[in-house]
């Protein structure tokens, strides 16, 4: 009797845990399904390539927002990926438990725990209030600050797993340390660094809070990096909250494009790294 009830408990817990798992997956499927069903109908060549029309006129698109998201992401990547890689190299190869290393590590870990809106507030206060207009450069500062810890951690972790033998062999060949580090260790770790950078890129592609008071929004094509710039994220936010059915359906269309960008990078990177992992074991 007791044995049966213990087995029943086990079976009960099995189905209970399966149930909550299904319950947690449901929103993911639901979100993707609602984005496709609401967003696919507005997709067209015009939607992807043209400027938004003023309110009340039909047609128009999100071309400037797609371009703006890529420009701002590129600007953020250009300064923060090299910095993140450099810090990752320092932490993995040069820091031998020094005080400086501990300070850098703490700064990186703290940076990764800062809410994204704080970066926006910071860039707004530092740049926008100083130059007295909204600018895409402030957005690139805010988003770059978010990328640095992600890239640094990916670099450090993928360099640390490179075998000590390789480093010792390079020392025996008389190769100077910078060349050992860059041309051998970093080169062996490049897959991990690249996937870390791509995931960081995907992560900031979806970030909206740092853009609200930096790049703001624009109804025109980007005309300069120090000007307000439209992005997919802010467009979704503005249009979704506007309440006008035409704009809301355009927000769904923009969500579909944003989702495609973010999920494609994620699935691709995770697919590749998992495959590698499976081969290694």
């Amino acid at each position: 009797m007791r044995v049966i009830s213990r087995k029943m408990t086990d079976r009960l817990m099995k189905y209970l845990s399966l149930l909550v798992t299904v319950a947690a997956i449901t929103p993911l499927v639901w979100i993707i399904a609602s984005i496709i069903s609401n967003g696919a109908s507005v997709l067209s060549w015009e939607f992807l390539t043209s400027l938004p029309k003023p309110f009340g006129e039909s047609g128009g698109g999100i071309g400037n927002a797609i371009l703006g998201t890529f420009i701002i992401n590129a600007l953020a990547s250009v300064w923060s990926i090299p910095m993140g890689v450099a810090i990752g190299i320092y932490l993995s190869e040069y820091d031998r438990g020094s005080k400086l290393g501990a300070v850098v590590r703490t700064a990186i870990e703290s940076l990764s725990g800062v809410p994204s809106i704080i970066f926006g507030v910071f860039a707004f206060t530092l740049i926008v209030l100083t130059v007295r207009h909204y600018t895409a450069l402030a957005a690139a500062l805010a988003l770059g600050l978010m990328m640095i810890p992600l890239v640094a951690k990916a670099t450090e972790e993928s360099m640390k797993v490179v075998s000590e033998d390789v480093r010792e062999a390079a020392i025996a060949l008389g190769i100077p340390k910078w060349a050992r580090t860059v041309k051998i260790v970093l080169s062996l770790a490049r897959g991990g660094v690249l996937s870390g950078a791509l995931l960081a890129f995907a992560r900031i592609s979806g970030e909206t809070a740092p853009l609200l008071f930096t790049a703001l929004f624009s109804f025109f094509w980007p005309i300069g990096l120090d000007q307000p710039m439209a992005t997919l994220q802010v467009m979704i936010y503005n249009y979704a909250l506007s309440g006008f059915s035409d704009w809301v359906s355009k927000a769904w269309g923009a969500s579909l494009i944003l989702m495609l960008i973010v999920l494609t990078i994620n699935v691709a990177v995770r697919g590749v790294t998992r495959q590698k992992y499976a081969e290694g074991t």
Partner: protein
Amino acid sequence: MKTKSSHFFNLQDSAFKYLLIGLSLLVVALFATIAYVLIDRSSYAVINNGAQFLLGTIWDVSREVYGAAPAILGTVVSASLAVLLAIPVSLGISIYFTEYAPRRARFYLSIFVDLLAAIPSVIYGIWGLWIIAPLIKVYVQQPIIGVIGWIPLFSGPAYGISISLATFVLTIMVIPIITSLSTELLSRTPMSLKEGMNSLGATKWETVRHVGLPFARLGTFAAIILGLGRAFGETMAVTMVIGNSYQWPFTTSSLFSPATTITSKIASELYEAFSTLQLSSLLELSLALLVISLAINITSRVIINRISKRGFS
């Protein structure tokens, strides 16, 4: 010749080293600048608002009265409730994943959890606002108000957008964070202990209950704190579904009422802040958020570091 070339190499070596150190220090400086800017620009509000900032319930730009209590309470209540709801779900997923799931399902399951974490928060926002809010209004809020609406916590009217909707969306966003850490911890339960339980005739559930969960207890605590930090700082999804009303919890205490949080207050007001005190007060809110987030983050890091150094619990 030989010494020359090795001297040349040394020069390159130290140049490279100092470049790395310089860039590392730059990040430290940037982080310090964030803290400095927020402290510096909010000091005006700290002096002018005084304790009224933490205790006051009114945020009135025209009268220059800035009390943040409703925003702070909105953040604390929505984030804490979300984490409380997420804990059993996350542990359930972890247990299913490590004990019961077939091998092939594990791969897809981990992808699903990763993707749930990857969805941009503005997309959670548009989904919550246009899909969930109308459903929750008709099928959850109105029936509950009809039955137990006399309890202030569940009183009407039903708007859809509300602090309970924000909690619901936050719960979904926090689940992948807690799940990924607790799954890793549970899957690191030593095989010898599990086999020991097996040989005693324990069921899988008994093994998890008496070995796995106690083993992962400290780490799960760290995961929960990490999730709390994420929920505190979440901006877009919350701003879009919470309704940004300053009535809650002092004018009405209903969980079906619109409310506001620290982040949604900043997000909806910063770019139209004209008076110096208003701007400074919003920066004081940002500073408060930064301090809370850092405290949460440091606590969870300390725990995680201790676990990875000492092994477990």
